């Protein structure tokens, strides 16, 4: 017996059994206590409430929403809103971060100073304060009557109004997809065939792809037009309020700006670190071959810096995605706020929080999975690298 306990393998197995056993005991105890407490307070647990109508409204939704819609539809609205805010916020933060990060690695002293000041200020102010600040700025813009106007867009304290084409929903979605393709396709073609065609031919192929995608978008919009209406629906003053166009509410703008500026300061540091990690030798080799500074940047420095940045960037994106839950502070109906309202109205606290956690786990694990795949695909091959 003693000798059996001295066996390393037996010991390890025993420890595992103890660990798993006590963990499942703990979980079981929690569930039983929760059930008894719920029963004592007369709360019925379960997910039946998902199919009841909510009876309250949301202030912003990309999907059609009425107070008669069931809870599960509202959760979907919340997830879509969170994804929309997250996507816009992450894209803006990446743009800001890239510009500031490049400024910080620049040889220009003024650019470096501006970059450092930016990072020092915005990284050290709590995100929630920045959200309130931008919300206050936007809600103090002029009233609809005195709106700032540019290119048919109106900027007011009630939000940003954009003109939208008078086309059917399906056609609009299809056109957006085609326009995204017009940008993505040439980039993808450029990546996959970097060395398989001479530069001149490659440019031709890329331009053709972009033109085709844009033409498709134009055709879709032309055929999807709603009859008897002008091509674009401009927002216009009617009485005291603005009618028509697409309204971006101040809550959304404040959150998107705050995430862009706060996240941008973190991403700037990641970008700077990535560029610093690129060996000076590779750049000297590229210069010694006569490549222009621009080519050295795009062919050597950027691709190597991206590889160094990506794992940390994925981390930051997951973080910023979770930061969308600040929506509740200014009243943007993101996933978290929908869950909070659901708890208030239905009392199904445990279920709603379970759905919230599952939803965020799903979003962030997918994000991480995508980044892991990309990381693996572009990882440098071999282990004999020096310098």
């Amino acid at each position: 017996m003693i000798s059996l306990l001295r066996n390393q393998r037996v010991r390890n197995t025993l420890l595992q059994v103890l660990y798993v056993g006590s963990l499942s005991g703990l979980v079981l105890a929690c569930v039983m206590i929760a059930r008894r407490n719920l029963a004592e307070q007369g709360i019925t647990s379960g997910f039946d409430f998902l199919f009841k109508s909510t009876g309250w409204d949301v202030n912003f939704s990309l999907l059609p929403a009425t107070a008669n819609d069931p809870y599960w539809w509202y959760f979907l609205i919340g997830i879509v809103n969170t994804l929309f805010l997250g996507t816009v916020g992450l894209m803006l933060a990446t743009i800001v971060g890239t510009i500031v990060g490049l400024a910080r690695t620049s040889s220009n002293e003024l650019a470096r100073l501006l970059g450092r000041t930016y990072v020092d200020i915005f990284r050290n102010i709590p995100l929630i304060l920045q959200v309130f600040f931008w919300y206050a700025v936007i809600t103090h813009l002029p009233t609809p009557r005195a709106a700032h106007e540019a290119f048919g867009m109106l900027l007011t304290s009630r939000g940003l109004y954009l003109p939208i084409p008078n086309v059917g929903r399906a056609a609009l979605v299809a056109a957006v997809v085609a326009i995204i393709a017009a940008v993505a396709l040439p980039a993808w073609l450029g990546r996959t065939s970097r060395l398989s065609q001479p530069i001149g031919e490659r440019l031709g192929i890329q331009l053709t792809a972009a033109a085709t995608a844009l033409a498709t978008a134009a055709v879709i919009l032309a055929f999807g037009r709603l009859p008897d209406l002008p091509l674009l629906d401009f927002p216009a003053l009617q009485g005291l309020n603005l009618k028509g166009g697409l309204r971006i509410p101040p809550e959304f703008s404040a959150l998107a700006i705050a995430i862009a500026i706060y996240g941008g300061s973190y991403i700037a540091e990641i970008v700077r670190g990535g560029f610093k990690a690129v060996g000076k030798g590779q750049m000297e080799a590229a210069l010694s071959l006569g490549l222009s500074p621009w080519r050295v940047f795009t062919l050597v420095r950027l691709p190597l810096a991206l590889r160094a940045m990506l794992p940390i960037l994925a981390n930051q994106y997951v973080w910023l995605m979770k930061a969308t839950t600040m929506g509740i502070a200014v009243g943007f109906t993101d996933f978290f706020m929908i869950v909070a309202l659901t708890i208030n109205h239905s009392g199904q606290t445990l279920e709603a929080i379970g759905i919230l956690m599952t939803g965020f786990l799903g979003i962030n694990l997918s994000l991480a999975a995508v980044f892991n795949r990309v990381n693996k695909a572009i990882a440098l091959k071999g282990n004999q690298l020096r310098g």
Partner: protein
Amino acid sequence: MNSTQSPGAAVHIEDLDKYYGSFHALRKINLCVQRGEKVVVCGPSGSGKSTMIRCINRLEQHDGGRITVLGTELNDDVGNIDGIRREVGMVFQHFNLFPHMSVLENCMIAPMMVRKRPRAEAEATARGYLEKVRIPEQAMKFPGQLSGGQQQRVAIARALCMQPQLMLFDEPTSALDPEMIAEVLDVMVTLASEGMTMICVTHEMGFARRVADRVVFMDGGEIVEEAPPAEFFTSCRSERTRQFLSQVLGH
């Protein structure tokens, strides 16, 4: 010292000065390398050898004096710098291959982007030079999958693909394991026998004896002595050179 101006000179350096802050790294260097000549530069570490050859393609900017490479003066004119870099190949101590590109891409990128060669021609040239450095079978691998000696031979092929008129070697074998030094030196010997103009910073005295037309000894940022190898190794004039040689050849 040999500093007479000649129109056919590959590299002509006059009174070259270089500072790092207040440190005087190169002091009034004068060196003239003819086309087809092979010059080996040696000297203790910190003597300015690397700095000097890095000035020749402007990886380091010089602070005084004149450098003329293949008839073009190296100054702030970007066109001149690009023109010189196109014609001057360089091999580094740490290879400095592009780790995200295959061996073949490493060799094709500059001819395609700088010389605007069509892909097929660039690939044929690249495969030709990979054959020459005796690793044609590694073309589709990535630098990190090759041994140090193989990587350095790829680096030589990459530089040769630009069909340079002058090759600079900055301690090409210093980062290699002993058994890999020979394979790199063999390639360099072949290159020399084909008439390439070469300036090599190296401690490989056997290579210097066999290939060099002239050996230049540097110390403290100055050229202390330069002589053909036979003379250099047997009857050097300076005490510092004798001391250095006894240290490298001592074992």
